[in-house]
């Protein structure tokens, strides 16, 4: 057994009171740390860039983006899939690891769920903006209308609407229900009247009675049960957006499992990207320990290998099929105009993450941080390769074309990162980043210290 495997998921010496103090002080502390203000300033600048990009888009239309025939999807769909994938780690951590009784999830599930919500918010914007007339988004839902029509239920794009909106709803409920006991803690500890009222209203009258806890346990188990299939189904449906089409490079049966693995891969990379600065800056190393980083690295290693298998099978099937268009698709990825994106993706997603086999690497916080950033980039490149290289050269050479993102494509993308960071920083400041009451459950009983 490695030392990390038995390493604690909460450092020794903590009691109920110290856990509560440490986590709630981030929210209730009088002084807002300067670093937070700097971070929020940067995030809001990027968010303003998004607002500018969206305003110009709404005034001028999607023509300001680089999309055109043959590449009609471009950045909007690349970013949509990237963001929605990132969200998956939160759901996996909160639902599947809860049902599997993996106690180490406790200290990362709260902010991972928040990450899910914010990532889904960013993701949801892209298909809506890509529609060109986002104010008519409700046409995607089946409702009695004057047109006498229903959405095209045979289209995976409609399944997507249901998959993503269900995902957003369940994630929100799960996150909020989990927050209730902590909101009550904040209400009880807050000194300022305004904080008492706001947290009190949000706590919805939680008093911590036995009945409340009983209902809480039932509700969170039910929601975990609801969310578990979503971990698999949402990105499966997203992959159908591609796999149901007949474009070479999309029309592949391996897409659903390979997309789901990729989603969890990128999600854990993002959790790590957020967790490492968070634990460092707020001195939460006692709660987010090396054991957590080690476990997350292993999950990334495993899902990364599944993704690698997916790339291999795509290549294998292209040649095995003997189909001239499929074969050309792989040739084009390897040597075509977007070959740089393809080989960077292989380096970022397959080659570099193999370093995590080494215990020394898994023990090094800075290296893990860099790897997690690289995987984030790699997973973005993967979606770029899937969307753009498949579309830009399909069956007929006369209809081939190139796709070049414009500055507005970049502004919108970078802008959503700003939106994400803004929401995340506000979350850190106003809500407990770690589930206080669940962490209390991890504090060993007196005399039990050794077993922890």
């Amino acid at each position, binding site marked *: 057994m490695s030392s990390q495997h038995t390493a604690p998921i909460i450092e020794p010496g903590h009691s109920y009171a110290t856990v509560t103090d440490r986590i709630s002080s981030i929210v209730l502390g009088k002084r807002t740390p300067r670093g937070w203000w700097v971070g929020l300033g940067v995030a809001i600048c990027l968010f303003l860039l998004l607002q500018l990009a969206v305003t110009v888009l709404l005034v001028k239309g999607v023509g300001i983006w680089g999309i055109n025939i043959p590449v009609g999807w471009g950045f909007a769909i690349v970013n949509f899939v990237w963001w929605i994938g990132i969200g998956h780690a939160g759901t996996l951590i909160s639902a599947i690891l809860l049902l599997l009784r993996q106690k180490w999830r406790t200290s990362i599930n709260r902010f991972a769920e928040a990450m899910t919500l914010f990532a889904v918010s960013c993701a949801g914007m892209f298909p809506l903006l890509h529609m060109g007339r986002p104010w008519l988004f409700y046409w995607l839902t089946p409702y*009695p*209308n*004057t*047109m*006498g*029509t229903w959405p095209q239920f045979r289209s995976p794009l409609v399944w997507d609407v249901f998959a993503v909106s269900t995902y957003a709803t369940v994630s929100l409920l799960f996150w909020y229900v989990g927050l209730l006991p902590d909101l009550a803690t904040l209400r*009880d500890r807050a000194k300022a009247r305004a904080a008492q009222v706001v947290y009190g209203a949000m706590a919805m*009258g939680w008093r911590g009675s036995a009945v409340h806890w009983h209902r809480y346990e039932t509700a969170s188990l039910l929601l975990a049960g609801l969310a578990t299939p979503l971990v698999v189904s949402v990105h499966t449906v997203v992959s159908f957006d591609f796999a149901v089409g007949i474009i070479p490079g999309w029309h592949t049966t391996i897409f659903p499992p390979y997309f789901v693995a990729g989603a969890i891969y990128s999600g854990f990379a993002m959790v790590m990207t957020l967790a490492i600065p968070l634990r460092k800056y707020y001195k939460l190393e006692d709660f987010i320990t090396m054991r957590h980083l080690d476990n997350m690295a292993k999950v990334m290693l495993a899902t990364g290998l599944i993704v690698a298998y997916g790339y291999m099978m795509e290549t294998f099937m292209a040649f095995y099929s003997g189909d001239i268009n499929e074969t050309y698709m792989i040739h084009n990825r390897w040597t075509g105009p977007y070959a740089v994106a393809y080989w960077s993706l292989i380096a970022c997603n397959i080659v570099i993450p193999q370093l995590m086999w080494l215990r020394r690497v898994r023990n090094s916080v800075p290296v893990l941080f860099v790897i997690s950033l690289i995987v984030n980039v790699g997973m973005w490149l993967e979606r770029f390769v899937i969307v753009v290289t498949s579309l830009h050269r399909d069956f007929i050479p006369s209809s081939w074309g190139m796709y070049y993102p414009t500055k507005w494509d970049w502004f919108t993308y970078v802008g959503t990162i700003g939106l994400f960071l803004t929401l995340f920083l506000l979350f850190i400041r106003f809500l407990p980043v770690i589930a206080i009451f669940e962490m209390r459950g991890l504090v060993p009983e007196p005399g039990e210290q050794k077993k922890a």
Partner: protein
Amino acid sequence: MAQIFHRSTNTISRVSIYGSLLVLLVLSFALYGLSGSPYYTDVNLAKDQPVPFSHRHHAGELGIDCRYCHTSVEDSSFAGLPPTKTCMTCHSQIWTNSEMLEPVRASYRSGKSLEWVRVNALPDFVYFNHSIHINKGVGCTTCHGPIAEMALTWKANTLQMGWCTECHRQPEKYVRPRDQVFNARYEPPSKFHAVSAQGREYTDQDAMGAVLVKAYKVQSLTNCTTCHR
């Protein structure tokens, strides 16, 4: 520790949760009702015109054929609005001093068209062609309503897409014999009223519709691009 909230907060929160659900529900029903109401669609609202032209008098009582004025309806997308000259074919002879008709004579003298208030208009993103409907056995009154009863013309149907698709999905329910298309007082076949088509008498729209759809090769076109090109 003092209570943060008054007891009444419980009631207020319950009322606001269920109340907002109720408000949402009522609001969506209201919006749905509004979108189909004459307030929004102008259906059944007779519009004032520069000259109070009466279809009831001309098409109904006098029995002038629709095509006398709407000349291009059989071979063009647009049915055509008559130029003032068409009015003057009769009104240079009858009612020549009528005050009501002064704008018509003024228009004839000056060559400046009368500006009628549009009653039936489709949005620009809809492709619509009168001639194909006429030639496939869709009568004027099927869409334009009881035109022979309209003193001032009103819009008889919403012209909303749901109304279009009702016929596009099952044309046999609405199609009539070609020789009845311009009959402003046409009645579909019923137990009390037979209609002859293709050399037979019918007392049932379903039976006649099926035959006519076949004979006229009427297709049920419901692809989006049929109208949104």
